[in-house]
């Protein structure tokens, strides 16, 4: 990041020059740049990309927006299971940040945010520069809690992938599944609550079963789960019965699912003292907010960042907002849809604070689609409102077992439409 200067003022100006060269659509004259309020967004996922886009777009260039994201291509966690199942190709879940710069004048900085000076209101970058802000939005997603699965740490992620941050891990897991010996065993160590995408592990099980049923029908799937119950459980179990009868076994906490250790070198899983040899081991550890939230010292003992529901402001610092998985907000699931929804409330609050734009009451919504088998989609959704205490659920729905094939197919097709729409809502 050699274009970043230690002087925040200078660095902003050099960003503007860069973006101005990249686009003819930049609306604000650069002479105004010095006086524009500055928003720095850390993390370019469903929360971060959306808030950056909405603040830049809706302020018409009146707010200077910088998005800090280390990767140049974003691979969405949502729909990454469909890549594992062979329903999407890898390129179709990848997105670039080019349009955010070109269409909205957002300064996209590919670097890691490594420090936050809350008093001085600036963010330090791994590349050595720093970015001054009037408002900081942290949307860093999740990190894994070390030691949550004995025997596993990040150094074991090539032997036992988590594939819970999409990208090369997702590709690796798919390759390992394809390379399983005939009649082999795929094991998932499922995470404890709360975690990113509550139906995600179980949609993944469905997709793995879908692949194995075609390529390796005598293979077995083992879920080691510390939870009593899980999202859309009735729908998944009904679907597994219909599509993948006899392939899937789930060991819940009653049978030792909450007492698991892994041995990556030996490819062994020890469940309640009993050793099982497996061929693929997908370890999804316990989770907490992405590291920059803890560095900023805005997380609680559980590792999440509590927020004010009306604005998504950190309870610890009114100049910082936290979005998506990293936030502790109340009833919303940790999902891309939720993060996108929270980002729009946050964008409105940030613009209201920094410019004279109108502020409306916060409202949130979420829908999670899951694919169980070919043309067999299900969904769960809810609406939410901000109370002083938390984001509170007001209403909801869930797909039913026994729905017709037409309904399930329509639900799947709806999910494809949603994917296209939310991708555009984040990146276009």
């Amino acid at each position: 990041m050699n274009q970043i200067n230690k002087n925040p003022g200078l660095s902003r100006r050099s960003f503007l020059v860069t973006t101005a060269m990249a686009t003819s659509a930049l609306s604000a004259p650069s002479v105004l740049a010095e006086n524009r309020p500055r928003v720095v967004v850390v993390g370019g996922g469903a929360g971060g990309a959306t808030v950056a886009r909405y603040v830049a777009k809706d302020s018409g260039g009146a707010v200077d927006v910088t998005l800090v994201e280390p990767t140049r291509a974003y691979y969405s966690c949502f729909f990454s299971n469909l890549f594992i199942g062979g329903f999407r190709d890898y390129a179709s879940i990848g997105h670039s940040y080019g349009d955010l710069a070109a269409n909205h004048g957002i300064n996209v900085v590919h670097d890691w945010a490594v420090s936050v000076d809350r008093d001085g209101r600036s963010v330090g970058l791994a590349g050595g520069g720093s970015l001054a802000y009037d408002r900081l939005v942290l949307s860093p997603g999740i990190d894994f809690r070390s030691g949550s699965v004995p025997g596993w740490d990040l150094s074991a992620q090539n032997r036992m992938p988590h594939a819970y941050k999409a990208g090369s891990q997702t590709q690796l897991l798919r390759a390992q599944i394809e390379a399983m010996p005939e009649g082999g065993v795929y094991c998932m160590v499922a995470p404890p609550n709360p975690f990113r995408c509550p139906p995600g592990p179980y949609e993944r099980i469905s997709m793995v079963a879908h692949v194995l049923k075609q390529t390796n029908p005598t293979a077995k799937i083992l879920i080691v789960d510390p939870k009593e119950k899980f999202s859309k459980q009735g729908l998944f179990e009904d679907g597994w019965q219909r599509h993948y009868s006899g392939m899937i076994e789930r060991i819940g906490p009653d049978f030792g699912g909450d007492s698991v250790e892994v041995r990556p070198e030996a490819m062994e899983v020890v469940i309640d003292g009993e050793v099982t040899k497996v061929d693929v081991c997908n370890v999804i550890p316990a989770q907490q907010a992405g590291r920059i939230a803890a560095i900023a010292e805005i997380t609680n003992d559980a590792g999440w960042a509590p927020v004010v529901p009306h604005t998504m402001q950190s309870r610890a610092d009114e100049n910082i907002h936290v979005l998506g998985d990293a936030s502790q907000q109340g009833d919303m699931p940790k999902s891309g849809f939720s993060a996108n929804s929270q980002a729009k409330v946050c964008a409105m609050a940030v613009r209201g604070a920094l410019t004279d734009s109108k502020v409306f009451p916060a409202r949130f919504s979420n829908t999670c689609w899951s694919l169980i088998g070919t043309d067999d989609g299900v969904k769960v959704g809810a609406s939410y409102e901000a109370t002083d205490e938390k984001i509170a659920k007001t209403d909801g729905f869930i797909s039913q077992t026994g729905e017709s094939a037409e309904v399930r197919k329509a639900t799947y097709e709806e999910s494809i439409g949603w994917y296209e729409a939310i991708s555009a809502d984040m990146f276009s």
Partner: protein
Amino acid sequence: MTVPSTVSANRLTSHRAIVWPRLRSAGLAACAFCVGIGFLTAGIPANLTTASARTADAERGRALYDQCKRCHQVGSGARHRIGPQLNDLFGRPAGSLDDYRYSRAMRAAGSGGLVWTETALDAFLQDPAGVVPKSRMSFGGLAERDDRADLLAWLRGFSGDRSGLPPAEPTFTPEEFGIDPRVLEIRGDPEYGAYLAGECTTCHHATGTDQGIPSISGWPADDFVIAMHAYKLGKRVHPVMQLVAGRLSDEEIAALAAHFFSTDDEP
């Protein structure tokens, strides 16, 4: 296996089973818009499924047109609604009416030489997304050649000589859903609508590609307001839309309608 346990499942199943048995494999073959309105069941002759080499049956086409009439008007006084009016359709270049906001894809198809001849319309009705990808028309297509021939035979009656056409039917009326017509007089705040629309654009693609979720950009405000109130009252069935509409006030629906009427998100 349990019996379908939601209203929506029952309704959808019964539509398809009774009305469109041959379209089952086409999934969302029927208009995405009409699914859940409880509309397809009305007024369609029982002998629809007989098909063989024969002359096109315009009267049967009139019944098939029920799938189109939530978006298109045709007949005397027809106006553009969600879709363009269909008078004098035959021989018209695609995307060519000045006062309708077409998708970029449809305009490009017209510039590229697509003219609505009988053959072109037949191909388009069979596979709209295949003939004009990324058009905003949210319709899966008519798989049966006879259905298309009959529908076109009926539509052809509205091209050429314009005298004596029957009056165009409205796309939506508040009365049919038991909606108080006064909600149509509320002037929505477009700025509030723009904020509320954030909840819509997570699923409804700004450019409205027809991939399971219809475009709502550029909709006439009245049609938007009636559709949303129909969801809110449970007269139109879709769990996500009922959830979304259920918490919107009359003023908020009006604000969203004002916003989406003003959006044409294709540069």
